């Protein structure tokens, strides 16, 4: 029995001529213990998918079963409860409450469960120890580094023993050292048996995932199981792979985008500054480069 089962899920915004299809007949099933990375360009529906899975949003049509329960048509009140008990959120901007101490932030979901203060602080302390931040319990979020803040957020996401952990670009605002720490932590959590769903723009992070899902224009265009530590083939083939910039590109700046030949090998090495005659340009080449730049 999968933890998450999405069948024919649509999400539409607006109506009439202005209708935007954010999710287009998405079918997705995630088993317990998977680490799923979701990739795709901006506007491809990744965030909407996360919001639907995290019960922050309701699908317009379709079936959504979370942990064996139909949750697509739940009322606000019950959705909040399911969210509290089954979903843990990790955001790019940490989203800690600035006026609460670290330990209070971690204990917040327990407060909405109605747990007594002493009990929830005890639990939160244990969770902070797990993420290695015991000594920061009574700090305020503003006194933490980005990596530490994200680890606090991870502790908060884990405090309710959720069925699924949803991470929306967890390393998006971190430097590479902190990113590594945070990803190792997420990876540990995954290895401990948790289900993790992560959106990322960084292809190298997919090596932590056991499965990579690619989205485009609201649909899932590729779905690939990978071994831990490996980057999936789809990604290698796709436009998302590592920066293809060279020193030449940097020198040329933006105009290099225009000069890329579609048939040429990746990295427009052959296009030199001297040879500035414009060549045939195609839409495909431009998009490729634009994505690579990101």
């Amino acid at each position: 029995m999968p933890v998450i089962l999405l069948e024919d899920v649509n999400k539409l915004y607006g109506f009439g001529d202005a209708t935007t299809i954010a999710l287009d007949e998405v079918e997705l099933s995630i088993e317990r213990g998977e680490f799923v990375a979701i990739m795709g360009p901006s506007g491809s529906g990744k965030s909407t998918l996360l919001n639907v899975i995290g019960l922050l949003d309701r699908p317009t049509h379709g079936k959504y079963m979370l942990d064996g329960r139909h949750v697509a048509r739940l009322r606000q009140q019950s959705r909040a409860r399911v969210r509290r008990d089954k979903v843990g959120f990790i955001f790019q901007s940490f989203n800690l409450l600035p006026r609460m101490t670290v330990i209070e932030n971690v204990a917040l979901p327990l407060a909405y469960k109605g747990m007594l203060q002493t009990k929830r602080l005890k639990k939160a302390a244990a969770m902070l120890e797990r993420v290695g931040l015991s000594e920061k319990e009574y700090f305020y979020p503003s006194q933490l580094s980005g990596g530490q803040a994200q680890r606090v957020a991870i502790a908060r996401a884990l405090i309710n023993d959720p069925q699924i952990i949803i991470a929306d670009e967890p390393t998006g605002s971190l430097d590479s050292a902190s990113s590594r720490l945070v990803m190792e932590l997420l990876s540990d959590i995954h290895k401990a048996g948790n289900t993790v769903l992560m959106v990322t723009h960084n292809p190298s992070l997919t090596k932590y995932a056991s499965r990579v899902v690619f989205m485009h224009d609201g649909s899932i265009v590729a779905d690939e199981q990978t071994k831990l530590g490996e980057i999936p083939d789809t990604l290698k083939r796709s436009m998302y792979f590592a920066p293809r910039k060279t020193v030449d590109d940097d020198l040329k700046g933006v105009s290099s985008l225009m000069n890329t030949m579609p048939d040429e090998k990746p990295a427009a090495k052959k296009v030199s500054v001297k040879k500035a005659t414009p060549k045939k340009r195609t839409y495909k080449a431009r998009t490729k480069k634009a994505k690579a730049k990101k």
Partner: protein
Amino acid sequence: MVTGNFKIAMDSIKHAKWRSFFTMLGIIIGVASVVTIISIGEGVKKQVSEEIDRRGPDLITVRPGKVAETDENGRINSASIFSSLVNAPLSENDLKVVSGTSDVDYAVPVSYLSGVPKVEKTEMPRAVVFGTSGDLPKALNQKIEYGAFFDKGANKNVAVIGPRVAEELFKETVPVGASMQLRGQSFVVVGIFEEFNDISLSPEADYNTAIFIPTEAAKKLNNNQLPIQQILLRPDELSQRDEVAKNVESRLLNSHAGQHDFSVLTQDNNRSISNEILNILTSLVTAVAAVSLIVGGIGIMNVMIVSVTERTHEIGIRKAVGATNRQILAQFVIESAVISFVGGIFGIIVSLVANFVLRVSTNLVPVITLPIMGIALVVALLVGVVFGVAPALKAAQKDPIEALRRV
């Protein structure tokens, strides 16, 4: 959850100290003014009541006009503030009827005369002149400090004055033997009353500024007529009080040909009437002051609406970690209730200070009782809850995705 919300509320008050203070200001002023006004009213009631006690429980007062409506048990259920102003005064005949009633020890007429007393060039317009008889000190239970009160049948031009008159008109403490001019006639001061308890805002006249002259002299001043505003009488025994009051009433009713255009009042009646009048006055002024409480509530509502907008992101986070709409609603309602309640506490502190200042600088003796404080705090709390609901609903209904996007 409630204690958690309480802590959140206290945190956000502490976090924005000045803003919270200005938010509370409306409530502080409202609570302080309501409590102070009520306490002044209570103070006056208490003083009047003490004065009535001091004059003794057996005193019976007859007044012109129907001062109060009574129900079948003789309890007063409404009092008229202006009745004695618009009614014809009692007559000398009424005095005869009253003093002729059996078991009446003595009956003292009090008639109000117009006239400004004058000593050489000094005038005292605020002095009040009363024509009365020799038993007045007994009826008021008040001692003469210097000299003596005039005798029962006195018809000479003599006067007994209150201590304020001595100070302001004669500029000396003991002007016994001095004379003053009153409507062209000369009066000799024969006695000075001891200081009366001065009760500001009491419906009774202030006898400290009074000049008492014999009824005969008063008649001469007033075209041989004696309009009587009040007859004070005492029965022989306290136990006869109710019976005497009833007899006086029926005899007067006979002599007035069945017209009930007078009132016979025991001290208990007097107390109820005075309380009734003060209640009307204080509730009017309190109603005005209560408007400021409502304005304070609107102030809280405004600040809470701004605060909800400012904290949209926080609301988003809370919803993402599982807060239900109701829990968000509770958080903001509790916050506004706490602000208002704390404002109420400050308001009571302010009114206690005002109480102290009033006691020191005026002769008012305001009384702040625990029930008044309790009611004020409950009202402040209610104001907070009522005016907190709208902003809290706004907070609760925010869409979590939108809210998370707003930083």
